[in-house]
């Protein structure tokens, strides 16, 4: 007499359990050494159960402050079970995405501020999925590299590199580089260099005129929010 309700209940519980677990299970991101500081030895440990890759990486982004570029939609939606670490952030992200045939690489010079996810079977970062609406990026002749800075852009036949916009470059060269890059805002490589100058990754001080110039140039792009949006009135 009681077999059917119990059986139905068991079937229901089994059927609902994964959904409930997926919806309710929090994603734990633990930082060893506190918030990620670029270039530092901090390690990251992630525990997630059955959550989509995109949700896991978003949690990692929030905890570390490091931008992780957009994933292909089919990968972003794939559920993952992960309990690893502590690992350096780049290795953690690679571990997350490698089962999907993807690898994560740096696209900056010297300090970790962004990770780009690329298919492992391609030779160039030109096939990487880039930030937001810029995907897919134009092909580049550069080889991907895990640690070596690779930021460079060719504008009107001239190669501009990170050192051209860094503090070691003469001010006139920095300005020339930034203005040239500002003429190629449809080139993701040029934008990446400008962003490195603007956000400090190129090593420029906050009040460096070149850093302000880079910010002004980037503000020309449509859809870019105001500086004051990030720093609202105290009123």
């Amino acid at each position: 007499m009681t077999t059917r309700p119990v059986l139905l209940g068991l079937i229901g519980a089994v059927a609902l359990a994964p959904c409930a677990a997926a919806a309710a299970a929090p994603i734990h991101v633990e930082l060893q050494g506190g918030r990620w500081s670029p270039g530092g030895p901090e390690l990251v440990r992630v525990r997630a159960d059955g959550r989509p890759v995109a949700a896991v990486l978003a949690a990692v982004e929030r905890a570390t402050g490091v931008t992780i570029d957009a994933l292909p939609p089919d990968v972003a939606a794939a559920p993952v079970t992960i309990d690893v670490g502590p690992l350096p952030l780049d290795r953690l992200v690679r571990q997350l995405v490698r089962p999907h045939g993807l690898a994560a690489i740096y696209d900056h010079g010297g300090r970790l501020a962004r990770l780009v996810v690329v298919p492992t079977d391609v030779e160039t970062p030109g096939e990487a999925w880039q930030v937001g609406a810029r995907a897919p990026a134009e092909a580049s002749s550069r080889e991907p590299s895990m640690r070596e800075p690779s930021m460079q852009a060719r504008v009107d036949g001239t190669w501009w590199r990170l050192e051209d916009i860094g503090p070691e470059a003469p001010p006139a060269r920095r300005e020339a580089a930034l203005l040239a890059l500002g003429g190629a805002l449809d080139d993701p490589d040029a934008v990446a260099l400008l962003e490195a100058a603007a956000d400090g990754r190129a090593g420029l001080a906050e009040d460096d005129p070149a850093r302000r110039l880079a910010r002004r140039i980037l503000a020309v792009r449509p859809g870019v929010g105001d500086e004051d949006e990030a720093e609202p009135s105290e009123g």
Partner: protein
Amino acid sequence: MKRTHGSVARGAFAVTALVMLLGASDAFASFKIAHWNVQSGFGKGGWAGGNAGFTPGSDCSRNAWGNGSGPLARTLVSRVKDDKAVVALTVNEAWTCATPSRIRSLLGFAAATKEVNGVAIIARHGFAGNSEVVALPKCSGGAEQRYVVRAPVYTDSARSKVVQVFATHWTGCAAEGKATVEFLQRYAYQPRSLTGDLNVKSVSDAPIAAITAKNWTDAWSKLHGKSGGQTATWNNSYGSPRGNLYKRIDYALFKTLKVRSISRFNHTGEPGAAKMADHAGIVVEYDD
């Protein structure tokens, strides 16, 4: 005797008419102060397509500055140079292409202050004395160093009247408002104008309230109330429809002056189309 009486009567009438005429003339005397965040002359890109007549970016020959002949430069001529009542233009983000010295040359104005972090004052009839710069407290450790620039600006070609013109570009915190009003009040009892991109969305917010608490008046609020008058920002992710101006953050505040009108320019057009600057400019008119 009759003839004498007639002459006296005619003379009295002429004097009365002259007095009335002078009075009427004086009643219509005014001067204007313009302000614009010129965004370096770079222009603001859009997504709507079409031919904007310039290429947004840092190339001074192709962007909105266009080596002094682009749409931003032409607007400066039509709205500032050609309006003879405009005696001062305050600028923000006047770097790289649309610099104060280039704008002064374009307008044929007599003087310009030095530029500090993109802020400057350019005067049609020149300055009655030295200009002055005050550094404001930073809003946070990573915030930009901001300044207020002051210059005594002649309001007439005879160089007989002066208004103290202050220009600034805030990050938008209360500390800036407090430091700014201290500077403004050093020139108490003189006609004073403060214009700038204050990055504050409401006149009742603390940074501006620090100034209005000293009986300074916001020109837009006085003439048009507390709504409307948006000056920023073209073609970012906000606004309705997307890309439209959506906030009033460029202000004209004054004291010991009587405001007559305030208007905007570069405030119309299709959101999403490239714009000569991401801010609207303002022109405020005061009794002389």
